[in-house]
Every structure is written in C-alpha cells, then in structure tokens.
C-alpha cells in the first residue's frame, strides 16, 4: 500500500484527449496550416481592414468620378488601394464590407446546420423507430423541394433583405447535416458505452448530449468547414442573380457581379480584387476542411 499513499499526493497526470491528438496531426499538415493562416488573415482583413483606408464604403470620390477608367485604378497616391467601383466609391472599403458579409453568411449557415442538423439527426437516430421515420421523411420532403426556387420566391415575396437570405440558408443548410449526423448516430448508439449509460439510468437527452454528440463532432466539424464555402458560393450565386444582398450592403458575389458588368470598359480591377478574395478564401476553406478530416479520421491513426 506504500505506493498508494505516494500516489495520493502525487500530481495528477494530464491525459491526451483525442482532440489533442487530432490537433497535433493537423499541425503536421502544411497545406492545412497555410490555409488556416490565410483564413485568419482574411478574417482580420474583414474585421480591421476598414481602419487601413481613409475612405469609407459610402463616400463617392467626386474628383475621380468623372473618369474612373483612367484615374480610378488602384493607386497609393489617391489612397484607393484597390481603385474605385463603378459608382466612384473606394473598392478597398467595399471589399472589406463584402468580406464581412460573405464570411458571416458562410459561418451563420454552417452554424445553423451544425446546431440544428446535429441535434435533429442525433435525436432521430438515437430514439429510432417511428419517430426516426417521421423525422427523416420530413427531411426528405424538404430536400425534394427545389431550394433555389423557394429561395427566389422568398426573396421576391418578402422583399430582398439579408434577413430573408439567412432564413433561406437556414432552411436548407441543416438537411444534409441531419442525415450525416443520423447515420453516425446509428453506428454509435450500439456501442457498449451507450449501453452502459442506459444501464446506469442516464436520461435520454443527457445520453444524446454527453455520449452521442461529442462522438459525432469529428465528422460534423469536417462537414461544416466544407459547408462554409458552399454557403458563400450559394450566396454569391444569389447575389450574382441580383436577388441577394442589396445596396448599400455588398458581398463577394455582388462585387464580382458589378465587376463583371464593367469588364468590357477595361476596369478589370473591379472584378479582380473581389474575385481574388473569393478564390483564396474558398481554396483555404477546402484545404482546411481536408486537413481537419485527415486529422480527425480515426482510420489514419
């Protein structure tokens, strides 16, 4: 028993959780780390970019307004680092604003899908039986409706606002996640640790929250990071059609749309800068998601 008394006073050994293992694996993946850095830089640009320029996103630079094509290009002298947009506003400030809104849409869409989809799918899968059938048929029905059509209707009927856009994205984004979460739950719920919890008398909501959801999170997080770019793309498409984010707000999609409209006048910077941010962010999200998947994939261990 002598060793036991020593141990009682000894320091408690820290364990290495599966999350810590995954983090170590993630940081060994160079592409993923570079993507993470890019994403951080883009987020910093969205948050603090406005401080780098004396121009606001609403001001029209009347001095250059007359000849945007020749005078409105990117220049340090005029402090329009990215040039002007077709209406004579500072494109740098506009891109900052667009980045904020596009990232927000991507993140809100992914968040809704993570929270709603995971809980919905885990509940359906864990309880099973008739409830599972009803809940998943509802998902099937919602999926069968052409969402682009519904979204366009929503925006036309209730007016084009960013709130309606969130509602529309919220309505569709969780469906896939619910299916994925349910599938994973089905494989987890027959594990013995869940049986042990049932045998102990842990209540069903607690089993779902404490035992099922943490074991789903690996898959869910990976899917969510891949969902962010698809949400951004989705919003861009809607904005490109002219239905999404409305002036004076803007987004990557709306800026690209504006830029594309001016292409034939030779003001390529109006297309180039938003497109550049759009592309690097999407690439970064995809590589980041891939890196996360490799890090969290238990088969790789």
């Amino acid at each position, binding site marked *: 028993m002598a060793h036991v008394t020593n141990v009682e006073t000894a320091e408690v050994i820290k364990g*290495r959780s599966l999350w810590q293992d995954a983090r170590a694996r993630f940081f060994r993946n160079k592409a993923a780390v570079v993507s993470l850095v890019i994403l951080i830089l883009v987020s910093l640009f969205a948050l603090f970019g406005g401080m780098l320029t004396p121009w606001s996103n609403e001001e029209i630079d009347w001095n250059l307004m007359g000849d945007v094509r020749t005078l409105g290009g990117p220049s340090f002298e005029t402090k329009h680092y990215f040039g002007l947009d077709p209406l004579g506003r500072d494109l740098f400030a506009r891109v900052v604003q667009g980045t904020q809104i596009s990232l927000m849409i991507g993140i809100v869409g992914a968040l809704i899908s993570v929270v709603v989809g995971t809980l919905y799918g885990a509940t359906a899968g864990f309880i099973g039986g008739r409830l599972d059938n009803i809940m998943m048929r509802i998902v099937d029905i919602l999926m069968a409706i052409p969402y682009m059509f519904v979204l366009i209707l929503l925006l036309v009927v209730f007016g084009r606002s960013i709130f309606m856009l969130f509602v529309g994205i919220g309505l569709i984004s969780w469906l896939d996640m619910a299916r994925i979460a349910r599938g994973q739950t089905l494989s987890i719920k027959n594990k013995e640790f869940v049986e042990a919890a049932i045998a102990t008398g842990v209540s069903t909501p607690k089993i779902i929250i404490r035992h099922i959801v943490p074991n789903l999170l690996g898959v869910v997080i990976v899917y969510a990071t891949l969902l962010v770019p698809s949400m951004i793309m989705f919003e861009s498409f809607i904005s490109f059609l002219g239905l999404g984010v409305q002036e004076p707000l803007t987004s990557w999609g709306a800026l690209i749309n504006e830029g594309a409209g001016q292409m034939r006048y030779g003001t390529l910077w109006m297309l180039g800068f938003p497109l550049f941010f759009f592309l690097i962010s999407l690439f970064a999200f995809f590589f980041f998601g891939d890196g996360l998947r490799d890090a969290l994939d238990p088969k790789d261990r």
Partner: protein
Amino acid sequence: MNAQSPLLSVRDLKVWFDIKPKGAMPWTAPEKLKAVDGVDFDLMPGETLGIVGESGCGKSTLARAIMRMVPSEAGTVLWLGDDLLSLNKQGMREHRKEMQMIFQDPLASLNPRMTIGQIVAEPLKTHYPDVSKSEVKTRVREVLDRVGILPNMINRYPHEFSGGQCQRIGIARALILKPQLIICDEPVSALDVSIQAQVINLLMDIQEEMGLSLIFIAHDLSVVKHISTRVMVLYLGNVVEISEAEQLYRAPGHPYTQALISAVPIPDPKAHAENEVMLLDADLPSPLNPPSGCVFRTRCPLARSVCAETKPPLTDRGNAQQVACHVI
C-alpha cells in the same frame, strides 16, 4: 442453500424479437424470434450465478432483459419483491443504482471523449446530483484505487489504457454506487489469459468484500467453474440445467451439459487424448422456428417420442441440481 429470500427471482421470462421476413410488406405479421423463452431462476445474496451456453443461446439477451434494456414479452423479474418489468421509468431508475453491468469489449464500453474520471463519476452524478465535486473526486479515487488503477490517472482518456486496465475502469464504474448485483456480460472474453485471471480474481475479491451478487455470463467453462457458486446452462433460450458448480462439472445431468463438459479441454495431453468428446449432430436449430417439445431433441442422442410432444419441466434431481429432461 439456506432459507434466505432471493435477491433476484426471475419467473417465466420471455424475450421475443420481431423479425421481418425477407421481402415483407408493411402489414405482414412479423416472425417471432424467441431469444429467451421461459427462463426461471433465483439469485441469492452474495451468490455468483454463472450462465453458459453456446453463442446465440440468449445469455446476453437474458441479462439485458433483467436490466430492462430490451423489452420482455412476458414473465416477472422480482428484485427484492418488486417486479422490475412492471415498474415505470422513474421506478426503474431508482433500482438501476442497485444493479450494474460490466461489458464484453472493455474499450468500447468507455466513451472515448471522456476522461476516466468523468466516466467513473457518471453513475454517481446521475443518481446523486447533489453530491459535491470534492466528494465525487474522493469517491472516484477510492474506487479506482480499489480496482488497481492509480488514482492520479483520472484525467487520462480510455485509449491510453490497455484492455485489462479498461476492464478495471469498467468495474470501477459499476462499483461506485455500491450496488448489490453486478451482471458481467462476458467480461473476460476479450482479454488474454493472464489478464483474465487478474480480472476474475479482482471480481471475486470485491464480491467477498462487498457481499455482492454476480451474474457471470461466459462461454469459457473453466472460467465459470472458477468463479461461480451455481451454474445455469442455456440452450436456445431455455434453461436445460441449473446446479451447484462442483456438481455440474462432476456429474452433469442433461445430455447437452454432458456434451459441453466433455468438450472442455483438459490441460494434460494424455488425459485429453483419452477423454472422449461427445459430439453432437447437426447445427443449432433456428430460434425463429424452435423444435416442438424439448428444444434439444433434434441433437439429443437419447431423444424419444415423448420429447417431441411436451416440453420437459425443470425438476429437482437432489444435490441442488435441476435438470429439464424427460429421459434422465
């Protein structure tokens, strides 16, 4: 056996599962798979009841039915006088802290995202939510120490332990509520032999110390012999024999038990070569369509016409041995 009242008394327990036949329409009646078909037994306080039988004979299902983890078709499970099967959810919850379970796969029975401290504390927090954090911590340390896991490991995760250690953690989780019954569902089948002995000896020590009853499910007959006071032999969801462990191994009554015992390897090559293994013909019949009368008759060397007609009841054969057979 003294005249003590039993801790657990199971009468005519039936667990049937609905199986949809292949290509069934939604309205066709499902077939009944009789996993457990009328089991009776008593468990005395402080006793170890071994349950043996080949795979698929309903051992685990029986255990899960007692814990009400699978629904039962009929029968009663009397726990200190209360019928567990007719209790509501709340009533059952109250009794869950008196009975715990240990599982076959040690690693799979621990949540990989929780530290072992959290895992072991979970039953305590579930049944006594008011217990203070420091109290929980001391209890967890005590119980981990008891099963031979250093208490300073509480912040480690299950994948950092070996199979034997994980099983000890599983035992710690079962012990923290100081239950009266632990159901062990093949607790050592997944461990290697030297670790098996350690885990079994630990279970026996704890049993003696705490006056626990154990239901010990296994398919390794020598392990069961070592730990059990009485042994119950299941065949196709039916009890074919219950008897004192010594008696069962010395003089098995039922022809099925005889075949089982004769197949136990003897750790002496000479004796093993001389030992005549009683081979049974044919395979285990399907529990979807069990034979009429005695379920064992299709493979029994002694079967007669009466065996096909009526199901033999469990009858007392002296020496605390009960056998269900018409012939013997």
